[in-house]
């Protein structure tokens, strides 16, 4: 039998050379007559080890990484196809401490299986959740999700079960499940990873959402920056349809659910759910006023569940193992697990799924291993471009929705970006305003105009023009944006700006003229 060799198809891994590594291994194997089968799997999310190559051996899967094409000859010489020792040898994959210490519930099969093999998925308890759901009433499914304590992972943390119940109770000839896969926050890649590495779990979650609410049609709205995720999702949908997992008679139940992928066109604001719905309807991605809630009048005016990828992907395990099993992880009102994405200037960047409650310091210093540059950490931004910058003094903040809010921050989609001491926080504050100006949908004046004014104020501050006045203006602008914006783009841009100002006041002093020498 041929030896299985795993080389990820994950975009992060490919960005570091996985395609070339896979070709080089195939070429060398065919030359040396080795009988191998290369499986392009998802990533386990340890990006400092990517491209990470695994080999199936009698003692389990063993890993090597980070592998470059220059290492292929020595890997063959070291007999890596039987798990031989090599300077890149990492031992058994499952024993790698970064992976072993996680609680992988949502990502339980990501990296392990061939992403588009339904047999692999089934062999690893996949589809058990939907099979259980098919034996339950819609109310029972909603109750299980409510009882699990699952809250939306897209940013707002709204209880998923409550949203589903609103759609369930809404009478309509057609309802929709829309998966928000627009993942625009810097520092986040969990949606991408799971769509590329375990697409069937998203399909399963969406079917369950359909069964719970009476929706028979689903859409995955994702960004054009994610071509691989789109390809893998489309392939998995095709496979699921052919196997009768999607279609008019899902798993022989007589119930119907089908879905397709839609691609955005490069607009951050389209991750906001009503802008997303407008975009899907072929309109400008302008934010809609609420009410009406999308749950009642969503896509094409019909009741619609809009959920983040990770919210939906967390549902199958809840239906498989029970609400209590999921609920037992976490702290306070933040129940279950959260796939934390550690990024930026960090030694061990990647995805770490764990129950809520680790402190920010534990995450970036112990798990992330500090900065990649080896310099001291100065700030970490949590929750994307609308999230606050945290200084070291706040590293004791536990990863929990409420605890972060208490400190004028937010968890968002759980992305953490680490900066070393070379970062200039005034520049970061300016960027937050600039980003808001670039991506504003244009509906609200404080967001559209205020953000442009914000960048000008920071520029004046930098040039030393009446600094006291500029600081006051900046704070005023932030207040206006906070309270005069319809959505969180304008409303939350003040978080990174004010946190930078509050925690790093020294960076807002006027600059010496030498930097203007450009």
């Amino acid at each position: 039998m041929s030896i299985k060799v795993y080389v990820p198809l994950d975009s992060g891994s490919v960005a570091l050379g996985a395609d070339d590594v896979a070709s080089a291994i195939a070429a060398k194997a065919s030359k040396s007559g080795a009988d191998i089968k290369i499986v392009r799997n998802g990533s386990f999310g340890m990006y400092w080890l990517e491209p990470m190559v695994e080999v199936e051996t009698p003692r389990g899967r063993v890993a090597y990484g980070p592998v470059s094409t220059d290492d292929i000859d020595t890997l063959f010489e070291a007999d890596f196809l039987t798990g031989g020792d090599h300077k890149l040898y990492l031992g058994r994959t499952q024993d790698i401490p970064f992976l072993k210490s996680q609680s992988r519930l949502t990502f339980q099969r990501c990296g392990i299986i061939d992403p588009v093999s339904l047999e692999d998925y089934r062999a690893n308890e996949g589809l058990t959740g939907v099979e259980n759901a098919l034996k339950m009433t819609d109310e029972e499914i909603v109750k299980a999700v409510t009882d699990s304590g699952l809250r939306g992972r897209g940013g707002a943390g709204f209880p998923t079960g409550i949203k589903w119940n609103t759609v369930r109770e809404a009478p309509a000839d057609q309802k929709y499940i829309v998966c928000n896969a627009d993942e625009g926050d810097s520092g986040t890649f969990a949606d991408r990873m799971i769509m590329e590495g375990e697409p069937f779990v998203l399909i399963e979650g969406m079917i369950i959402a359909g069964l719970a609410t009476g929706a028979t049609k689903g859409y995955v709205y994702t960004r054009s920056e994610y071509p691989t995720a789109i390809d893998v999702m489309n392939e998995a949908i095709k496979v699921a349809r052919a196997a009768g997992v999607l279609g008019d008679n899902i798993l022989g139940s007589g119930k119907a659910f089908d879905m397709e992928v839609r691609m955005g066109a490069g607009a951050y604001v389209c991750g906001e759910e009503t802008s997303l719905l407008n975009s899907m309807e072929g309109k400008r991605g302008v934010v809609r006023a609420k009410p009406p809630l999308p749950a009642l009048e969503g896509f094409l005016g019909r009741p619609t569940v809009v959920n983040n990828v990770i919210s939906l992907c967390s549902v199958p395990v809840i239906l498989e193992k029970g609400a209590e099993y999921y609920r037992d992880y976490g702290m306070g009102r933040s129940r279950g697990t959260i796939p934390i994405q550690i990024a930026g200037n960090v030694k061990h960047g990647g995805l770490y799924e764990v129950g809520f409650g680790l402190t920010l310091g534990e995450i970036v210093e112990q798990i992330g291993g500090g900065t990649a540059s080896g310099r001291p950490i100065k700030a970490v931004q949590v929750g994307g471009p609308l999230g606050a910058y945290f200084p070291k003094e706040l590293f004791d903040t536990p990863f929990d929705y409420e605890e972060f809010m208490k400190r004028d921050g937010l968890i968002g989609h759980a992305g953490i970006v680490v900066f070393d001491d070379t970062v200039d926080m005034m520049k970061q504050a300016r960027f937050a305003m600039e980003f808001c100006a670039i991506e504003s949908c244009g509906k609200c004046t404080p967001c559209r105009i205020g953000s442009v004014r914000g960048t000008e104020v920071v520029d004046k501050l930098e040039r030393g023009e009446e600094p006291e006045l500029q600081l006051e203006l900046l704070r005023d602008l932030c207040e206006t944006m906070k309270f005069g914006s319809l959505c969180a783009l304008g409303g939350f841009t003040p978080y990174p700006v004010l946190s930078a100002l509050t925690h790093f006041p020294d960076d807002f002093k006027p600059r010496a003229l030498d930097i203007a020498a450009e």
Partner: protein
Amino acid sequence: MSETTEDQNVRVAAICDQLITLEGPLLPILHEVQEEFGFIPDGALQTIAKKLNLSRAEVHGVASFYHDFREEKAGKHVIKICRAEACQAMGADALGDKVRRHLNVDWSQTTADRKVTLEPVFCLGLCACAPAAMIDGKVVGRVSADRILEKVGS
């Protein structure tokens, strides 16, 4: 380009016919038209509008809202460099400066010889392998200015 406007309209109309049954067909149609021509030709707006029962202004309004849709063809190579925070933390600003200086273009411009179009992008989901870029649709992580320029032969 010897193609007549007539030919172009026929091709745009065919794309519309193929996708019009989708719920919310406009974005898929615009993507397909851009795939076919490399940009959204001005004449296509009218054809699409007619097919979808919209005004030309409405179609133009939608096409212009999204960063992806081009009004003119891009250069032979398209470099997208991530300018978002995780990449900033790993030197993306300096990287962007160097590439701009070398190509002698600003963001969203094409070099005079039409060889390279440089675009900013805000996150490619490669934030744990920063700084990141996408060159002619292919992703690269932990990238340097030299490597980017080498890939487009500049």
